[in-house]
């Protein structure tokens, strides 16, 4: 066979594959789209950094060959904040799950979007806490059965795109693991967008969500997403909450230009302080 390779391979820590994700899990699918988006972007991969929190999706950092950080539960965004502010040349991608980013890390999600710091958040939303055994998450659709809502959930779920829009994100989109081409396109847009970007990928957890809710395996889940999703870029954000069996509205919901935090900060101080301002400077890789 000729000299071609799987496009994702160059961005994998191949010695660590096979990964720990279950058969039919959607997380690996999102990594395929991410790898292709990085290629499409023309970014120097050596300047792309992936930061994850804790959970199944949090393991992405351990499988990609970019400089990568597997941080603490919910705190990928603040860690990424330090990385990006200390070295603005880095393209900082936060790759984590719905529980990590929107529950324990929800405060950081809101405030990072508010600041509009230039980090790119990929939220793999599998609707439950998967790593710990399928407990309810803020994103669990009302009525869904989980290991901590054994009679069905009665809590309303969190509408992530609406939250991110309200908080001020520059870019907000949602796709499912069925929409691999659109996902790749959205990741490319995310990488190119200056400011805080948020991509929600609705993904299956066949082991703990779909099976428990009688929705079949990984394949059945992707078919479900095909049948139940609707692309609506101009959707009213109020309509984006998900229920267990209803429509999943996908698309690019927010794409706007707001002043980016790091650049704004540096320009602000330069203007305020004039000659007294001193720009950050590296010597031998260390800020001096």
């Amino acid at each position: 066979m000729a000299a071609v390779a799987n496009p994702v391979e160059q961005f994998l820590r191949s010695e660590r594959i096979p990964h720990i994700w279950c058969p039919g899990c959607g997380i690996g699918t999102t990594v395929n789209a991410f790898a292709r988006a990085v290629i499409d972007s023309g970014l120097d991969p050596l300047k792309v950094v992936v930061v994850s929190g804790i959970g199944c999706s949090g393991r992405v950092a351990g499988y990609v060959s970019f400089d990568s950080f597997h941080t603490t539960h919910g705190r990928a965004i603040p860690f990424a904040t330090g990385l990006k502010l200390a070295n603005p040349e880095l393209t900082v991608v936060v790759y984590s799950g719905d529980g990590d980013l929107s529950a324990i890390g929800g405060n950081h999600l809101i405030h990072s979007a508010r600041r509009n710091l230039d980090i790119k958040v990929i939220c793999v939303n599998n609707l439950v806490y998967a790593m710990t055994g399928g407990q309810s998450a803020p994103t669990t659709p009302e009525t869904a059965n989980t290991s901590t809502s054994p009679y069905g959930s009665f809590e309303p779920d969190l509408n992530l795109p609406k939250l991110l829009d309200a908080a001020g994100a520059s870019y907000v989109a949602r796709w499912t693991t069925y929409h691999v081409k659109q996902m790749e396109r959205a990741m490319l847009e995310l990488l190119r967008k200056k400011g805080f970007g948020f991509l929600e990928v609705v993904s299956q957890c066949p082991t703990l969500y779909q099976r428990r809710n009688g929705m079949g395996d990984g394949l059945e889940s992707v078919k479900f997403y095909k049948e139940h999703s609707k692309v609506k870029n101009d959707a009213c954000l109020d309509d984006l909450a998900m229920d267990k069996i209803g429509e999943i509205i996908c698309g690019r919901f927010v794409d706007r230009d707001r002043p980016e935090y790091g650049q704004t900060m540096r320009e602000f101080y330069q203007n305020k302080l004039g000659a007294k301002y001193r720009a950050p400077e590296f010597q031998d890789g260390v800020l001096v």
Partner: protein
Amino acid sequence: MAKGAVHITVDRCKGCAICVEFCPTHVLALSTAFNGKGYHPPHVVNAEKCSGCDLCGMYCPDFAIYGFKLGKQGVAQ
């Protein structure tokens, strides 16, 4: 002659069959054979139909398959 081909890393496969289902030209089927982990990996059943679109590669959660285009002489492009 086929416009494309797929490459399968059998030992990475976990047998989810997503590639089989979403191949637009129905090139693949799950094999009856087992791989080293005990899963049924896909194999090519309609090689001539492969367009090399790499949709299988985009879906595969296990980085176990990808598609690529072939040129006139049947070499990868």
